[in-house]
């Protein structure tokens, strides 16, 4: 039971100006997130997952409703929330080190050694002088994660951060994320958007399933597995398989409904 929500969305709706038919991207979103919680969001694309990240980041304002952080409404971007995007997190004209250093300068915590330290943590100390264009997709995301954690923000908003990364690197990055999440003193609150059900089950405390047009929360699922979690035993666990199936059918029914609307249901 949560009485004082750490991060809460109350009746949040979002209509982008100029959107066709004025159809909302998000409708009546209610969600209470505890401090230190790891939330994963899954759902069909175009279902308002990214919009939720933009709202929490303060990049857009809700059309109606409120987003409260420790009881205070979010009015704009802030350094208490670090954001990792699927792409474009890094500035292409700054080297890996400069990217982190630039972020640190915004917090006023300036030292190149500190920036270097975070590059070392993600195993990219060698690539300090490389530009993002010279790095692979996986390496770029490691730098982006290093930048986010260097900021020392209590909240992490991640929009499909591993979406464009190959399977092997994704596993590495997931473990890195869990390590950083647990390691650095106080547990951080993470809000991670993903399209990978296994990723959500492996990482999250709770999984929020979104539905599309308009974006609404369909279901919130508690993930019961103890930490530290181990991949191999986990995916063989009966309750894991059950949860996974439940999530799959939730998402698939959504897709089938969509297809029926478009195609008239032929062949489904």
């Amino acid at each position, binding site marked *: 039971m949560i009485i004082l929500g750490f991060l809460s969305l109350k009746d949040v709706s979002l209509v982008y100006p100029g959107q066709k038919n004025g159809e909302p991207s998000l409708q009546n979103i209610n969600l209470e997130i505890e401090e230190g919680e790891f939330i994963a969001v899954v759902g069909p694309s175009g279902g308002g997952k990214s919009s939720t990240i*933009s709202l929490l*980041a*303060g*990049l857009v304002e809700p059309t109606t409703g409120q987003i409260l952080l420790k009881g205070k409404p979010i009015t704009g*971007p*802030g*350094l208490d*929330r*670090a*954001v990792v*995007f699927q*792409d*474009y*997190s*890094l*500035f*292409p*004209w*700054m080297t890996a080190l400069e990217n982190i250093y*630039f*972020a640190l300068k*915004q917090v006023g915590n300036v030292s190149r050694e500190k920036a270097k330290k975070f590059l070392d943590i993600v195993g990219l100390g060698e690539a300090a002088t490389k*530009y*993002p*264009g*010279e*790095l*692979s997709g996986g390496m770029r995301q490691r730098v982006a994660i290093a930048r986010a954690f260097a*900021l020392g923000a209590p909240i992490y908003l991640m929009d499909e951060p591993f979406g464009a990364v190959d399977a092997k690197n994704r596993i590495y990055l997931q473990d890195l994320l869990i390590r950083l999440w647990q390691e650095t003193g106080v547990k951080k609150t993470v809000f991670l958007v993903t399209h990978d059900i296994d990723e959500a089950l492996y990482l999250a405390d709770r999984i929020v399933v979104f539905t599309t047009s308009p974006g609404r929360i369909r279901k919130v699922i508690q993930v019961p597995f103890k930490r530290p979690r181990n991949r191999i035993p986990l995916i063989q666990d009966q309750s894991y398989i059950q949860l996974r199936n439940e999530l799959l059918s939730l998402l698939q029914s959504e897709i089938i409904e969509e297809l029926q609307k478009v195609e008239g249901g032929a062949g489904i």
Partner: protein
Amino acid sequence: MKQSVVDRILLFVGLLLLWQTLTGWFPLLDPLLFPAPNKVLSLLVEDKSVFWKSILSSFRLLFGGYVLAVILAIPLGLVVGWNKRLHTTLEPLINILGPIPPIVYIPYAIALLPSFTHSSIFIIFIGAFWPLFINTVAGVRTVEKGIIDSARTLGVSQWSMLIHILLPGAMPQIFTGGTVSLVLAFILLTAAEMIGATSGLGWYVKYFADFADYPRVVAGILVIGVVVLGLTIFYNRLERHLLRWRKMG
């Protein structure tokens, strides 16, 4: 030696031989209008000090106008490209003023400004300003939204947004505009010097053309070619350095 270097030298020697053939060995061209290469080349040495003085004089006008354009067009372009309301307001004005050929301002420049130098710098400035300004505005507006969002989530100040995000983000297009500006500035410079100057590369060519001294006219044209080449090489080096983050990996 690399094949490409050999090819280029061969081309150069070939052109020189062709020139020598048509003017010296089998003079098919009017010798008054088309002097032989040895005559022209010896003038390059003979008039060396005049050429240096001319280059210096031309550069004063060129850089006076061009640097002024860079200093004004880039900051203004950044602000106008970033501020939506300002951009919407100014757009029609930019569309009208931008395409006007700068030479039409010559009567006003002469009437209002105290000297030939001032007038020339002003005209060169106008010519260089618009391509730089328009490309800076367009460059800012094409910076990826994701990059701007990323900067906003870091809580960067407006100043930092302009200097550290929008300026480098627009830099590729600023250089595109800068090339057009430089070419235009050089054309305007030479034209201005041919009309009213008493020194400079354009003046040199025009002055000796009036005396039908065609060996010197050709020598002057060659020097202009070399100067433009030098400027282009410097400009491309600068571009490669400032945009070294691009197209790698």
